C-alpha cells in the first residue's frame, strides 16, 4: 500500500543518525516487552508475519512513528489482536488508564474471530513446480501497479527495468498471505536496478527481491 511504511526515496526525514557502538539492545524495559509481545501476538491472533507487516503499515502516523520502532511493534500487535477480536479495540487504552490510577470501565472480552488460516509448512520458503519464468541476466520490468493492500514491491521500484541477478528460493506471496487469501508461492528474483534509471542522479546499483507476479519481461 502507498503508506508511510514505504519509505524508499521519500524526502524530508533529515540527517541519518550515526551509529553508536554501545547502544543497548533495549534502552528501556518496555521495549523488550513490546518486541516479545509482538512475536507472541502473531500466534495468539492466529496470523502470520505478513499480516503483522500489513498491520504495521496500517497504523496512523502517530502509531507508526510516535513511539519509535518498538512502539510500532506494540501498536501493530494490538491491531492484529483487535483484527482477530482477541481484544476489544479500546481494551489496552482502558487498562493502561487504570494502571495509572484512572477509574475507567474496561470493555468486555469479545468473541475471538481468528482467520481460518493454516500455513502449508513452517516459514516462508516453498517449492514451486513450474520453472522460473525469468532467467538470470534477463532484463525485466516491475509492474506499474499500486496495490491497495499489502505488497513487497516498493513504490520507488514500480515501472522500472532491471536485470535478474539471482533466482532465490520460491516463497509465499506476502500480498495474499497477509490477508489469508492463500500462500500463492512464487519464484523470487534478486533484480539489480541502475540508480540512474531510478533517480536520474548518482551512478550506483540497487537490488531488491521481487516476486514473479511483480515482474514482466522487458525489451
Amino acid at each position, binding site marked *: 500500500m502507498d503508506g508511510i511504511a514505504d519509505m524508499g526515496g521519500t524526502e524530508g*526525514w533529515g*540527517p541519518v543518525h*550515526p*551509529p553508536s557502538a554501545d547502544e543497548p*539492545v533495549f534502552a528501556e524495559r*518496555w521495549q523488550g516487552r*513490546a518486541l516479545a509481545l509482538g512475536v*507472541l501476538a502473531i500466534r495468539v491472533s492466529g496470523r502470520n508475519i505478513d499480516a503483522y507487516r500489513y498491520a504495521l503499515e496500517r497504523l496512523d502516523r502517530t502509531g507508526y512513528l510516535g513511539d519509535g520502532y518498538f512502539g510500532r511493534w506494540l501498536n501493530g500487535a494490538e491491531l492484529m489482536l483487535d483484527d482477530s477480536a482477541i481484544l476489544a479495540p479500546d481494551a489496552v487504552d482502558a487498562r493502561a488508564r487504570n494502571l495509572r490510577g484512572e477509574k475507567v470501565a474496561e470493555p468486555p472480552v469479545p468473541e475471538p474471530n481468528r482467520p481460518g488460516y493454516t500455513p502449508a509448512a513452517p516459514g516462508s520458503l516453498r517449492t514451486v513446480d513450474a520453472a522460473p519464468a525469468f532467467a538470470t541476466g534477463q532484463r525485466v520490468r516491475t509492474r506499474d501497479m499500486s496495490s491497495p493492500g499489502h505488497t513487497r514491491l516498493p513504490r*520507488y521500484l514500480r515501472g522500472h527495468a532491471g536485470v535478474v541477478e539471482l533466482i532465490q528460493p520460491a516463497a509465499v506471496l506476502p500480498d495474499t498471505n497477509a490477508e489469508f487469501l492463500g500462500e500463492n508461492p512464487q519464484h523470487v528474483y534478486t533484480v539489480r536496478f541502475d540508480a540512474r534509471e531510478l533517480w536520474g542522479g548518482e551512478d*550506483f546499483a540497487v537490488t531488491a527481491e521481487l516476486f514473479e507476479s511483480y515482474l514482466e519481461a522487458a525489451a
Partner: protein
Amino acid sequence: MSERPPVALRAEALEQLLTERGLIETQALDRIIADYETNIGPLNGAKVVARAWSDPQYRRRLLDDGTAAIEELGFSGSQGEHIVVVENTPAVHNVVVCTLCSCYPWPVLGLPPSWYKDPAYRSRVVREPRTVLAEMGLELADDVRIVVHDSTSEVRWLVLPERPAGTEHLTEEQLVPLVTRDAMVGVAKVQAP
C-alpha cells in the same frame, strides 16, 4: 478525556490482558527478551566473518550458500531462513537496508540498531548512498561501486567486510572482536587494531 497513556504503560497493559487470560506466559516473554539481550547478536556474525577470513574454503561456502555455511557455526532461526552473503572489496561496496520495514538478519546480527530503523536511513540510502555513508562516517572513493541491497522479501543479506591490512598475523579468535555490526551491514569498514 485525559492524555493517551504512554507507550510503557500500554505495553504493560497489553501484557496483563494477555497473561491474565492465559494466552501468553510471562516466562515466554522473558525468554525472548533474554535471547536477544544475551545470545543472539552481532558476535554471531563476527564469528562467521572471522572464520571466512581465516579459512578460504569456508569463505567460498559462505558466498555460495550463506544459510548453510552460517548454520555450520550453529546460527539459524527467525529472520534467517535464507541468508545471502556478499563480499566487500576495494572496488565494490555493498550496503543493506529495508525500505519497507526493518528486515534484518537476526540470527547473525541480532535486532537492528536504531540508525537502521530510522526513517532517514531507510528513505535515503537507496537514493543517495554515498552521502548517507559519509554522514555515518564512511567516505568512499569516487571509483568504488556502491550496491544497495533492499531487503524486500524474506531473503536476508549479510556483508562480508574486507579484512583490514595489518591483520595477517591474527588468529581467527583474535579477529572476532574486530568485526563490527556496522561493517556487516555495510556502513563501516573493519579497522585493524
